[in-house]
């Protein structure tokens, strides 16, 4: 589905990604965790085609749509127009631009369709951002920071929607997330990205047991290792 091999991205002298490889199978949910500045957003922007890699390759069967960090809605436009513009690339004219198919998956959006996107709450905005990405009918959905700045109850709702999408439509999800607990909970497999390199990869359950990962991303130690460093 998605195969990233030895990807290198540089911004001038700075190397943002230094030989990153990862893969995503059809219908799979995979998490990408890591600290700020690790290169997570650079990676998705490269997958979206708006950052050019210096080396390496991205092979993608089908369409990838991104839910960008910070929602990035068109604040002056209505929710419905935000959704319609998500189908800009899709061929098929007026019918492809009808947001009705997204309202079926995210019914909340139908109620706020006429509101200006800039006036919505953070959770509603994130919902619109997901809906806008879905308008492109993607086979892969790359979600950059699902939970950032949102209340836990809102995050839980969004996570449920992602799970449903994945289960019912078979949309593969690449979830970039600072909240590793949420990421490991949602996704069967995960990669850890640090300073532009993949430092750990594998089933989420195994990663969650690993002392290094637990210490760095789960805010403490695992049950198996009771050492606490100060």
């Amino acid at each position, binding site marked *: 589905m998605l195969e990233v091999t030895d990807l290198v991205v540089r911004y001038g002298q700075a190397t943002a990604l230094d030989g990153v490889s990862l893969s995503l199978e059809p219908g799979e949910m995979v998490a990408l965790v890591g600290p700020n500045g690790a290169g997570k957003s650079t990676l998705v922007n490269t997958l979206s085609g708006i950052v050019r890699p210096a080396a390496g390759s991205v092979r993608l069967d089908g369409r990838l749509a991104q839910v960008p960090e910070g929602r990035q809605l*068109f604040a002056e*436009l209505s929710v419905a*127009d935000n959704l*319609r513009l998500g189908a800009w*690339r899709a061929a098929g004219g007026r019918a492809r631009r009808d947001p009705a198919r997204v309202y079926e998956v995210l019914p909340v959006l139908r109620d706020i369709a006429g509101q200006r996107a800039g006036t919505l709450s953070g959770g509603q905005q994130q919902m619109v951002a997901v809906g806008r990405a879905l308008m492109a009918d993607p086979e892969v959905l790359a979600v950059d920071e699902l939970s950032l700045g949102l209340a836990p109850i809102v995050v839980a709702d969004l996570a449920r929607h992602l799970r449903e999408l994945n289960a019912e439509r078979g949309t593969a999800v690449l979830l970039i997330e600072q909240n590793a607990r949420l990421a490991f909970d949602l996704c069967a497999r995960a990669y850890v990205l640090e300073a532009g390199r993949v430092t750990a990869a594998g089933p989420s359950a195994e990663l969650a047991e690993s002392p290094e990962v637990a210490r760095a991303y789960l805010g403490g130690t695992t049950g198996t290792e009771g050492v606490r460093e100060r």
Partner: protein
Amino acid sequence: MSAFLTYLITGLALGCSFALVASGFVAIHRVTGVVNFAQGTFAVVGGLAAGSLLGRGLPHGIAELLAIALAGVVGLVVGIIAIGKRGTPPLASLVITLGLGILAYAVEIIVFGDQPISYQMVPGAVSVGGAQILTQYFVVIVAALVTFAALGLFFGRTYLGKALTACASNPYAARLAGINVLRMGLLAFALGGLLGGLAGVLVTPLQPVAFDSDVTLAINGFAAAIVGGLNRPGLALAGGLVLGVAQSFVAGYLSGAYQTEIALALMLAIMIFQAGRRGAVVQEAT
């Protein structure tokens, strides 16, 4: 009474011409975030080209349309130079448009000469409440209203218009959605050129246009456009009308020497007011 009516209607027509220049500022700024200082040039090119083509015997209608199309091409060329290189900051683009506007003087003098040009478009006058008013004033008013209605529909109702708005609203998200932001910006510059050309073609029969008329046209158009923060066509129209009527009354009852000063004073007052208000909003948000 008849003097009052004359001043009012000529003022409205003047305001409509300002509003047409303003609409070009708005079309470009709304999409690219660039304040286009060559906007007056587009109007001058439109007026000079129409006069020159009519002088060569082209019939009315065709000459004017060709002149507007030429202004559109000039707009596109200015756009390519000003924003064609990806990542050019809007302020750099602004300075480029300023430079191109000055460069255009030389080209205009070579192509059209340095003498003011005027021509008659729709001859005759209409009697309104005892006042004789040139038919051309009504042509300007009707053309402006039709243009603004069309612009409103285009930006507010069409998919392409929404995409253009999206580019200014959030260029990053627009690129993620697959919208070619650069191409949209060039489209906006071409549209700005067409609107400027239309303004020039309509105004030239009322006041002769020379290569250096762009400053006056641009100042008045900018003053009108700034009412809507350079982004709102409807408010730009309102701003143009207020400015035009004010200038017409001052010229009629006091002196015609202060027209540009009125525009500058209005512009300053609005910009200071908006700067103050924006500060308040930012403070509330943080």
